[in-house]
């Protein structure tokens, strides 16, 4: 127990000096690593809704396979890779922000499988069967208008980005280190949370919304017509969760000492 705490404390100070994740993500990390749970393997987080709840936009079969097979496989592989290492017990968002600390022989696996776990965990919370439009006066709506000119232009930008991923990947709306909102994409299971050292300064940030554009996310219902799937996504975006994320990011930047 003592050794595990020492190791985690060492890792934390290393992260602060080396990683350069920025005050935004760093303060989140500090908060979540305050009380680590040692030696707890990652588990599949349950959805807040049934597999059929997002119909007709996201079909039940895809939701079920996506959650119980694809996401589970990332977790199973990640746990296997991390067995016996001091990284067991970290929050997944901490782990993906600390990829540079993972030994070289594990880093590829941890990046792919850990990224997969982080991205999908975020994705399920990002979706809701009770989607309501983002309130026009809300901070996030104002932030989007400021960054893109209008909400419609933001949506077009996001759709274009999601369509243009040449292969497997994700489209994101992130808050960057300077507090600005930006639409970015990542390939495979890279996450903006991985920081500038891994995904580049232009992509690094704190996700507010994200869309999986791997074929497994839409193929059963939408076949090759990814643009239709992207349009359907707007019907299930959890803007309450997105707004919370935005406020979290903004307050971290405003008060990095917290």
């Amino acid at each position, binding site marked *: 127990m003592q050794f595990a705490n020492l190791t985690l404390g060492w890792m934390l100070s290393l992260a602060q000096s080396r990683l350069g994740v920025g005050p935004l993500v760093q303060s989140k990390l500090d908060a979540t690593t305050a009380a680590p749970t040692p030696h707890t393997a990652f588990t599949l987080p349950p959805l807040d809704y049934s597999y059929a709840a997002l119909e007709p936009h996201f079909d039940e079969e895809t939701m079920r396979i996506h959650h119980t097979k*694809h996401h589970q496989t990332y977790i199973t592989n990640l746990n296997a890779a991390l067995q016996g290492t001091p990284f067991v017990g970290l929050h997944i968002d901490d782990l993906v922000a600390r990829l540079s600390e993972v030994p070289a022989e594990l880093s590829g696996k941890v990046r792919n499988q850990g990224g997969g776990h982080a991205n999908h965990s975020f994705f399920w919370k990002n979706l809701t069967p009770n989607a309501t439009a983002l309130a026009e006066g809300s901070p996030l709506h104002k932030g989007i208008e400021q960054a893109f000119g209008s909400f419609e232009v933001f949506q077009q930008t996001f759709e274009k980005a999601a369509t243009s991923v040449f292969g497997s990947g994700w489209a994101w709306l992130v808050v960057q280190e300077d507090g600005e909102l930006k639409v970015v994409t990542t390939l495979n299971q890279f996450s903006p949370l991985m920081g500038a050292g891994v995904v580049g300064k232009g992509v690094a940030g704190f996700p507010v919304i994200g869309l999986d554009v791997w074929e497994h996310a839409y193929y059963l219902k939408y076949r090759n017509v990814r643009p239709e799937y992207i349009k359907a996504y707007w019907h299930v975006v959890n803007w309450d969760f997105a707004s919370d994320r935005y406020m979290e990011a903004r307050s971290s930047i405003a008060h990095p000492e917290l």
Partner: protein
Amino acid sequence: MSTSILRSTTALRTALRTAAPQTTKAFSTTAPTRALATLPDLPYDYGALEPAISGRIMELHHTKHHQTYVTNYNTVQSQITDALSTGNTAAAIALQPALTFHGGGNLNHTLFFENLAPKKQGGGQPPSGPLAKSIEMHYGSFDKMKTQFVAALAGIQGSGWAWLVQDNETGALGIRQYANQDPVVGKFTPLLGIDAWEHAYYLQYENRKAEYFKEIWGVVNWKVAEGRMK
């Protein structure tokens, strides 16, 4: 059946050849020409590769995915040709990723559908001639080569392909992974490719890609692969 393969392959090679811009000077008076790519026919029915690959997948894969690569490749060709003929180097270079993706997608799928065959057209029959000898020389046995090939397929992160290739200089065989639609060009000649994108198997195998990587061998056309050797 075989003449349509020849015709489409010749057409493809012609298309690739004439699409190469003639740029002897920065602003060439001979505008680069372009030849529109067309979707090559399959040398077998959509359902003919069952049970390894379902007819539903083959039809979608051919009429939707491959067709889209053909269509978009033609669009990118137009855009690059326009950029080059107006001396807009930056614009032409900015189109490289799109050219690689759509052009590569067209190349890859053309070769892929050619290197599959129904059992009654020789699909799954192991090679017997020079390719067999080369496989034995480089891998010890056909099964050892297959094991490495399957490992390469299973190890692909995200979308991509695995290819049995031949080194153009040494003639040596190799198994290589290619991400997204990156084609086998340059140093290596593609002999046999397997599509590991999810669309290649998802409707039938869902996330059970190991099963697909096992079953596909029953419909691989090793004769075509051998014909690609230099």
